[in-house]
């Protein structure tokens, strides 16, 4: 009997030990509606600064839709509005990053085009000089 009790006690201790071993969930950051909206506004401005509304219109429009929806929810459901504003923030930042990638690629190709044209001009000038000198 004693042995059985002792065994049960040990098993219980082990079970308690493992249950206490898991870390408690982290407390979620508390974001109020104003902060969420401000973050979404900042992300919107950032996306527009790189003309994401033109270059990655589909992504931008998706973010814009979330932002507009958040605005609609603000008066009725604060929590839902906060979530939507945070979604919009994320989507605007995605649009921003995508636009930056496209812009850099376009700039790279434009710089190469200008460099190629300059090379043609320089070659033509040098050869023209040769022709003039040969006369």
């Amino acid at each position, binding site marked *: 009997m004693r042995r059985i009790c002792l065994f049960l006690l040990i098993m219980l201790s082990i079970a308690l030990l493992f249950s206490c071993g898991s870390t408690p969930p982290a407390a979620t950051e508390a974001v109020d509606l104003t902060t969420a909206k401000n973050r979404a506004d900042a992300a919107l401005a950032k996306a527009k600064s790189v003309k994401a509304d033109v270059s990655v219109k589909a992504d931008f429009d998706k973010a814009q839709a979330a932002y507009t929806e958040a605005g609609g929810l603000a008066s009725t459901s604060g929590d839902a509005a906060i979530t939507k504003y945070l979604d919009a923030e994320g989507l605007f930042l995605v649009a921003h990053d995508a636009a930056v990638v496209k812009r850099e690629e376009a700039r790279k190709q434009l710089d190469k085009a200008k460099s190629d044209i300059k*090379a*043609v001009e320089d070659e033509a000038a040098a050869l023209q000089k040769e022709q003039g000198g040969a006369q």
Partner: protein
Amino acid sequence: MKKFAGVFLLTLVCAAGVFAQSLQDNEFYKKSVEFTRLAEQALEAGDYDAARDYALKAQENAALSKNYIDEMVAAYRARTALNAARARIGLADRYNMKTRNPDVYNSATALYKKAEGEFTARDYAQSLADARQVLELLKEFEAAAGTAAPAPAPTPTPGQRISRYVVKLNPALRDCLWRIAGFDFVYGDSTKWRFIYDENKSSFPQPENPELIVPGQVLKIPSLSGEARSGER
């Protein structure tokens, strides 16, 4: 109307002095510049996909412009060498090489004809190589070419009409068919430029383009009304 428009255009081109002898003044170069401008506009507007596509087209046209320039320069160099080879053959004739050394003379003249054919076929690299080979074959006349009153093209006497004209490079007044036809020793009438073009277009760098003639190019001046023509200028 079409003829008038063509003549007017040629006048404008000659008057402006922006003839096609300016190597970079070709359609590909102009397109590359235009596409670059469009790319910059699109970039400014935020249409990065369009900006990239325009930039790639600009690069493509810049490459085509480079090829065009390379071809024109190759044509110029080949023509210059052909003129020198022809002059050297003239000297060889003067010194009676045909009798003294017929093998070399015949090889040189045959090679010269081959080089001319290659030029007409726009194989400028081979034409240049063969023309240089002619000069090498007739090397003994190299010194004579430098010292003697060379096989200088006989200068026309007043009133004489020439049968050949060598295109000059004068940046101030560029040669063009319109101007050449207007010379007293050619036709004295610029509107007759087309006769020169029709006679020579097969040897033009671009046969369909009467505006493109290169320095050193020899133009045959056909007789229009049975008038006697001789000499070169």
